[in-house]
């Protein structure tokens, strides 16, 4: 015996299943495993789950038995995101973290993050790897319009807004990188599995 299984399968109607796992890296690993082997319509990782849409339960269970959560995923491509750190919420984040504005930039650029999953908007990647003690609350009221390229924090996630949209995340800065381009394959620059580092550039 190697202990309890590292996952739990929950039905979602007749054609989909939600698989619960321990954390974001496990969800990413499982999503890549299932996408490669199942022929499902959609395999959607979340923060601690993988939604499998359009594959039979028996096939999913069989694929789950072949998944080793200890293997993790192959390191994805590394994307360096150049950032002008002049975001409107820099001071708020410094206050939450109890540090200077400069230290906020130094901490954010010191992280190597991983795109765990996308959602909210096409190409909006939830980047995991922000330490628990640096978690920041979302704004009490979202902004009606956050510009494309805004670099932001919320909870223990970092993200770059791929398109202009409403948003409640704390804005640290902005980048010129194109996060979303439907002529590119994949269209999302920060597809799940991609490693991300932020680098400070001058305005």
């Amino acid at each position: 015996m190697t202990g309890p299984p590292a996952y739990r399968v929950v039905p979602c109607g007749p054609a989909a299943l939600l698989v619960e796992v321990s954390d974001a890296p496990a969800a990413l690993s499982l999503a890549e495993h299932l996408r490669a082997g199942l022929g499902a319509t959609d395999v959607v990782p979340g923060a601690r789950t993988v939604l499998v849409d359009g594959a039979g339960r028996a096939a999913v269970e069989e694929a789950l038995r072949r998944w080793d959560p200890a293997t993790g995923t192959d390191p994805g491509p590394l994307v360096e995101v150049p950032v002008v750190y002049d975001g409107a919420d820099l001071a708020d984040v410094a206050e939450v973290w109890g540090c200077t504005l400069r230290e906020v930039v130094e901490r954010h650029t010191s992280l190597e993050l991983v795109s765990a999953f996308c959602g909210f908007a096409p190409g909006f990647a939830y980047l995991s790897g922000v330490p628990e003690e640096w978690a920041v609350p979302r704004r009490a009221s979202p902004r009606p319009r956050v510009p494309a390229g805004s670099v932001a924090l919320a909870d223990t996630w970092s993200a770059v807004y791929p398109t202009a949209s409403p948003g409640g995340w704390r804005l640290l800065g902005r980048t010129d990188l194109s996060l979303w381009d439907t002529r590119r394959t994949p269209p999302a620059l920060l597809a799940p599995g991609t490693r991300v580092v932020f680098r400070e550039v001058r305005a």
Partner: protein
Amino acid sequence: MSDVELEVLATGPLVTVQDRGRPGHAHLGVPRSGALDAAAHALAQRLVGNEPGAAGLEVLMGGLTVRLDEDRWVAVTGAEVPLWLGDRAVPTGRALRLPAGTPLTLGTPLRGARSHLAVSGGLVVDPVLGSRSTDTLSGLGPPPVRTGDRLPVGAPAGVPAAVEVPPAPPDGPLRLHPGPRADWCDGDPVDLLVRGAWTCGPDSDRVGLRLEGGDLPRARTDELASEGVLLGAVQLPPGGRPVVFLADHPTTGGYPVVAVVEPADLWRCAQLRPGDPVRFSRAW
């Protein structure tokens, strides 16, 4: 490049280009989109001899007038809507020969909400990620159709089908399966939905059918970590007012999914108007 165009002379509240959508990109945050009444879309395309993935127009509450610059087969399915070819009343649910220059007009539906117009050859606006559908949530695909638009029409590939399919009764219940987060509801959510008296809220759209008729009590008030959301999911936001997610739904969400609508029944949601009763039953 196509030389034949569909000219839009008038539109109603919302007209969009729709096909079967762009499933398979949900992990990149791309909604599935596609015709809300998938059965009506499929029937209309079959009637005019198109392949099933061809694109047509989804018309909310009628009001559309179009004309073509070449004779083509057309068909209108979905809502029960008065239909005129020029000033002649014509039936929905069958292939009609639309002569070049003659306007085709959809009136206001007598029953149902969304019609689907197919043209032989299909609409061949530029596809995005394999689909020509307008995604009203993310803005992918062509913008909503406006008066004066000229939409390119492809070359006819097949012959019109001689089928005539009576529309299914639009007032059947939506069958419910238990959702993955049923325990976040205080009580059995399927039971509460089946016993409740619900109507289609006025803020319902291609993203979701927003129910009116009370709030479902939540057993937990903490935050759920974001997880994948599927078509037909019944989500329970903090306010307790349930939403049934439709084609343009977000791909992940942080609110619990307490039930799931049987996929075969989802087309009915496309035909509900604000104020219409919404009935649920158990799928098992």
